[in-house]
């Protein structure tokens, strides 16, 4: 078998970042929820919130470490596997990574230590502040990595000179057309992930102990955040992100929506079975004019279809279409599901609705699945380019690394990540089963 270094490097990148990307959304979302929980605990002196803070802080610490451990790879993988890419974009792309380290990694790791280990060493105000800084630091980290990725999607502020992309305007490169909206959309997704995580764990604690005040309080907060963030993920952030894609990456929009022929009055696909080579959509059911209206605000606006683009510049439609629709489906479910929870909360039925609490537990992984398919939509929808219309993925990999070497590292990472994932779940479940401290300062189970 011929080992193709390009495909293996793509597989390795997908594997390593796909696994890594399970953890930062949880960390970011949970950190912001802890800012609220710890803030109430500190200002009101409410012991329940303090106990909740201690409990979820441990879970944050665990999640953070796995995120850090798997993230180290990301900082170096551009050089190891994508050397040609690194040489071509380094003048622009390296800066956000370095800035992320200087302004975000140092901040979050240093203050996380103070937050986790400094509870009895610093004042309550400083302790809360360290929690806030962890949340800000992890969010800044997301911002700078999205700056880097958005530049790949909608490059700006550069000139091609000396066989590479050279920086013209730093602000233009950082705030390229897609940065802001993509950051906001991802940030809402992180809040959903963190809120579902806290809500699911709180629901489990309530199922075990109906009287747990700690669990009631964290469930209420996380459910409200989950509801608001789910709405914001659809509108305004999701909607405007799609409009941005329609304007700047029309072939990605065509692949997402399964639009084959460019047309005015373009339909919004409600159902369809996508096929590749040539792209077509079978059994399509759609609302006429809806896509034109959503993407451009006018029913009769022209929307480009797959056939409007040269064959060698079309993204793979099946993966893009399916992952996009999976994300939209999950997002819609989050809105409906959390609305129901809010309704139960208002009717004062929430804490006794065991069936709903169980669904909350089962729903914990769903926002992470939504993050993954959203990211797949963004990245696969950009193919065949690694930098949109500037550099093809096929021209970006390290030509001096052999397929065998990459296969070795894929197997190695595959095994480590399998072990790490299993251990993370094992320890997480143990921590959750033990539950928060009771008022006597003891944990509920030995």
């Amino acid at each position: 078998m011929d080992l193709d270094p390009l495909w293996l490097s793509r597989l390795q990148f997908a594997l390593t970042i796909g696994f890594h990307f399970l953890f930062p959304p949880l960390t970011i979302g949970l950190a912001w929820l802890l800012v609220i929980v710890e803030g109430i605990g500190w200002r009101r002196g409410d012991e329940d919130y303090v106990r909740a803070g201690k409990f979820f802080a441990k879970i944050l610490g665990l999640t953070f470490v796995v995120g850090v451990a798997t993230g180290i790879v990301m900082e170096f993988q551009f050089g190891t596997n994508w050397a040609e890419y690194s040489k071509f974009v380094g003048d622009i792309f390296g800066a956000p990574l370095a800035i992320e380290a200087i302004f975000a990694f140092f901040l979050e790791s240093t203050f996380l230590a103070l937050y986790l280990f400094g509870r009895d060493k610093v004042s309550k105000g400083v302790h809360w502040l360290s929690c806030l800084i962890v949340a800000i630091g992890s969010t800044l980290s997301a911002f700078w990595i999205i700056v880097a990725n958005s530049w790949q999607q909608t490059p700006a502020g550069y000139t091609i000179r000396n066989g590479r992309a050279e920086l013209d305007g730093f602000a233009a490169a950082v705030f390229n057309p897609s940065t802001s909206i993509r950051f906001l959309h991802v940030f809402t997704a992180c809040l959903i992930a963190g809120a579902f995580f806290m809500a699911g764990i709180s629901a489990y604690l309530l199922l075990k102990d109906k009287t747990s005040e700690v669990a009631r309080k964290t469930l209420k907060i996380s459910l409200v955040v989950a509801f608001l963030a789910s709405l914001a993920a659809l509108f305004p952030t999701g909607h405007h992100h799609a409009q941005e894609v329609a304007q700047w990456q029309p072939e990605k929009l065509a692949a997402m929506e399964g639009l084959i022929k460019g047309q005015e009055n373009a339909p919004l696909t409600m159902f369809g079975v996508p096929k590749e080579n040539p792209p077509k959509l079978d059994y399509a059911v759609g609302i006429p004019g809806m896509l034109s209206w959503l993407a451009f605000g006018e029913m009769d606006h022209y929307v480009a279809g797959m056939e409007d683009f040269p064959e060698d510049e079309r993204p793979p439609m099946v993966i893009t279409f399916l992952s996009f629709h999976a994300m939209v489906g999950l997002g819609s479910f989050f809105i409906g599901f959390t609305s129901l929870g809010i309704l139960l909360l208002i009717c004062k039925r929430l804490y006794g609705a065991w069936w709903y609490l169980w669904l909350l537990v089962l729903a914990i992984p769903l926002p992470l699945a939504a993050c993954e398919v959203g990211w797949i939509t963004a990245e696969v929808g950009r193919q065949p380019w690694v930098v949109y219309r500037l550099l093809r993925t096929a021209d970006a990999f390290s030509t001096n690394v052999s397929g065998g070497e990459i296969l070795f590292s894929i197997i190695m990472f595959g095994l480590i990540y399998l072990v790490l994932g299993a251990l993370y779940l094992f320890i997480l479940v143990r921590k959750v089963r033990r539950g928060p401290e009771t008022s006597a300062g003891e944990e509920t189970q030995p």
Partner: protein
Amino acid sequence: MMDLNTTWFLLIGVLLTGYAVLDGFDLGVGVLHLFATDERQRRINLAAIGPVWDGNEVWLLTAGGAMFAAFPPVYATVFSGFYTAFMLLLFALIFRAVSIEFRGQVDGPRWRRFWDRTFGLGSLAPAVLFGVAIGNVLRGLPIGADGSLHVSFFALLNPYSLLIGLLSLAMFVMHGAVYLAARTDGELQKRMARWATGAWAGFLILYVVATVATVFVSPFLFEPIPHNLLAWGLCLLLLGAVVSIPVMVRAGRFVLAFLASAATIGSMIGLMGVSLYPRMVPSSIDPVNSLNIYDDSSTQRTLTVMLVVALVGMPLVIGYTAYVYKVFMGKIVIPKDGY
């Protein structure tokens, strides 16, 4: 006035020094962890670095990011050229990171024993591999005229580079032992002082041997030394620092010994920088192919932007890092939960 390329060469040196000084003691503690005799000492080892190792490791990520931003071809060539070695290094760093976190999670002797070993080996491997990588750079790498580089993993394990690997191992063990001695007392402190002195002796011998070996392997590295004032200053600093370490350890002045150990690491990296400048990676095929700070850098605009970022960001980082260290330093008390 220093040009931007030189400034960035210097800054990356500073970042690497920050990493070696800070995460260096974490690595040293990790290696010493393999030789810990009882559970109490193991708990102390972990508590000693628990709150700080993660921030320390960010220095490495920052150095990597800065290398990418300032010298993209060097970042691309070296990391892809060292592919397998680098993957093993990442593997070790991942395991070390999670070992520290996972070890205290389950209260069983076999569980703890396992993570003790992965923590120790996950520290030992980077402590050696960093030296091996530097040894290969000092030796010169087979960089072609087109800037391409490919070295098989086993070719990296040549005698000279392994010697530098042992040197860096001895250096980190010494640094970690001094750090632990400063943060403990009683019998454990005495034990760590003995380790520090022993590692120091090993370090000294290896350093002399490595210097002689370098004269034969890469004589060009010594060319800039005689007529460079900075090099003389660094030599004096190195000499003074190396001599002070055992004196301070014997006197029980462990904080000073730690500073001397840090100065040793810093002046060694500094001397290496002076020897290499303006090259970053010498080519063993033809000196003309060497990667250097002028031909293999980002544009002046990017270097300027990044310099502003570094000048604003790094003082902040150093400030709050110092604050958090102040909160956590002092003699170690084994925490109730956590490590």
